[in-house]
């Protein structure tokens, strides 16, 4: 009997819940695979998809968003071997799964911890509540390939933002595989969009895009590029998360900053009276 010929996977982009190739028709070879080489147009298309998803995702109940993030953990648990086959350590996969669970629980707690009633000196009802800032561009760290990626996506989306993620150019397979997890987790299309390819091609477009509200530069290791992106981001006053230090411990308690930087606080006043 002849040996079975394996079915290989085509690694594509993840935009609006679908897996298109780059509109440019280009790919590059990395991790022994052909991977889509996203163009500036793909980046803009991803922003359109992310913007279209904001209303539904930000408008979903916190309970609903929490369940969907938990569902991502369930799906990831079932696909552990797929990531291990890509060279991700078992410990890292475990940590990534646990991180989804951790963030899932934040959806309906952060507004209580981070908002609340303010005791103003007058006869007024005064309430502050956090809201998502909108569309967030994210540059994922190269390593750890899966845990780093999950650690930048989950805090952005748990509060109702949608993201366009530029995957690590050197290790994009974990990102594309995570997209397959997300696509089967009841996450609405467009909430997470993933681009593979060169950071210098897609990220400046995202940093300068007037319909992007915030940019997370965590994965940018070139200080000059980071500064250039921050300058572009200033044009519409994007909220900026600066690059992570090289020795950042991704296994440590992440804290809430990654969530709060991507939130707006809205405060509503109303007089009390009869």
């Amino acid at each position, binding site marked *: 009997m002849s040996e079975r010929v394996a079915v290989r996977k085509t690694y594509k982009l993840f935009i609006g819940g679908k897996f298109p190739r780059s509109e440019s028709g280009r790919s590059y070879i990395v991790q022994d695979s052909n991977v889509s080489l996203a163009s500036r147009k793909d980046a803009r298309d991803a922003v359109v998809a992310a913007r279209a998803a904001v209303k539904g995702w930000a408008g979903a109940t916190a309970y609903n968003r929490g369940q969907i993030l938990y569902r991502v953990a369930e799906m990831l648990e079932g696909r552990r071997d797929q990531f291990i086959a890509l060279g991700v350590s078992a410990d890292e996969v475990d940590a990534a799964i646990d991180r989804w669970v951790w963030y899932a629980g934040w959806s309906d707690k952060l507004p209580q*911890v*981070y908002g609340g009633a*303010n*005791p*103003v*000196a*007058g006869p*007024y009802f*005064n309430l*502050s509540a956090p809201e998502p*800032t909108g569309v967030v561009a994210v540059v994922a760290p190269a390593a750890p390939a899966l845990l780093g990626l999950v650690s930048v996506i989950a805090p952005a989306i748990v509060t109702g933002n949608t993201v366009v993620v530029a995957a690590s150019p050197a290790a994009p397979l974990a990102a594309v595989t995570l997209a397959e997890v997300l696509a089967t987790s009841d996450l609405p299309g467009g909430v997470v969009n993933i681009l593979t390819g060169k950071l210098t091609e897609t990220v400046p477009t995202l940093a300068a895009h007037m319909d992007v*509200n915030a940019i997370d530069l965590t994965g940018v290791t070139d*200080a*000059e590029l*980071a*500064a*250039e992106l*921050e*300058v572009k*981001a*200033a*044009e*519409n*006053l994007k*909220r900026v998360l*600066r690059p992570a230090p090289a020795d950042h411990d991704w296994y440590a308690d992440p*804290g809430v*900053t990654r969530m*709060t930087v991507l939130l*707006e*606080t*809205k*405060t*509503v*006043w*109303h*007089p009390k009276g009869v």
Partner: protein
Amino acid sequence: MFEYAPAPESRSVVDIKPSYGLFVDGKFVDPVDGGSFKSINPASEEVLAEIAEAGSEDVDRAVRAARQAYEKVWGPMPGRDRAKYLFRIARLIQERSRELAVLESLDNGKPIKESRDVDLPLVAAHFFYYAGWADKLEHAGFGGNPRPLGVAAQVIPWNFPLLMLAWKIAPALAAGNTVVLKPAETTPLTALLFAEICQQADLPAGVVNIVTGAGDTGRALVEHPGVDKVAFTGSTEVGRAIARSVAGTRKKLTLELGGKAANIVFDDAPIDQAVEGIVNGIFFNQGHVCCAGSRLLVQESVADRVLESLKRRMAQLRVGDPLDKNTDIGAINSAEQLARIRELSDAGSAEGAERWSPPCELPDRGFWFAPTIFTGVTQAHRIAREEIFGPVLSVLTFRTPAEAVEKANNTPYGLSAGIWTDKGSRILWVADRLRAGVVWANTFNKFDPTSPFGGYKESGYGREGGRHGLEAYLNV
């Protein structure tokens, strides 16, 4: 209009010196590489004092003094002692509040009833509020060991000179930072009197430094490599430039910038209350308010009634001497600002909107602009899109709540908004959809030290006030 006899507040309560130096390291000093400029009373164009202009060497000395104070005194000091200094300052402000209020009105042009009844009480309250945080930071929800950032560079505008100083300095000091603050060049006097209050409170030298000057001084301050934090309140244009200038540094940045707030009046709103809110929204502080309700969105079915009532109310507004206790609208802060208001108002007429002001006698000297409304404004008009920062209201109409939300959000700004309706569920529905940091429902222009303030989108980022305001000055 009723006739009132003049009722001026006495200016003898404040003693203005002929000239002021920079406040660096606890002392007033002459600039080493700067110059000087004059601060005038915008209501009379009279020179109030000559003010030192800090050059880059002066800014450097101030930053070094702040660094020294941070490392040697303020940083290591227990929170409970920092708190006591801040409580002292709050008390001194209360004790000297009339003096500060008169000085503010003289230098800024705002009516004494506002500086006395709004600005000064809020200034004292702000210091009192943040004083209490200084020894409770580990309970503020930013983790168990929140650390200060270091030296904060703070640049503030001329519309609420002392209040903006309080919004900047109180949380910075409570969190354990030291500061170098640059007041606006047209309104430096209350900041300099505040420096005297710091001396009176025996605040350690270098914890608060005040460098006076214009744009160049501000640029030297925010671009100084020795600052860890930059906080700016002012125009979106300058905010953008600052955001670019801190790119690639580790400086933490918060920005409180412009606005073009929608004040939405639904057909079931109590008209008289709404009209009071509209007037307060746009004519408070001569409209020199970043969160001013400068776009009135009124439901078509009640537009005529609201406008008729608004015009009647506007005819009662008293424009004139800021020190007169009956004055509702004072002087425009500067000739430059007056020119900007005139230019945009002329553009409103030229683009086809209909302009109306009540009959209104303006003083001969000083900078004045009559309260003005434009009707027939479309969303494309410059007066509906650009921040005028003056007593000029653009009136637009809508038919449905969805249209009101759509129009309200149709701006790159997102600082504040107003809603007037009797229906509670509608307030909450609309408030949820407005992209604005502060939403006033059936009220407007209310502020409190416990209540976070700040914008969405191009109105900036970060919040001032409340627990949220601490985050801007902590390494979290």
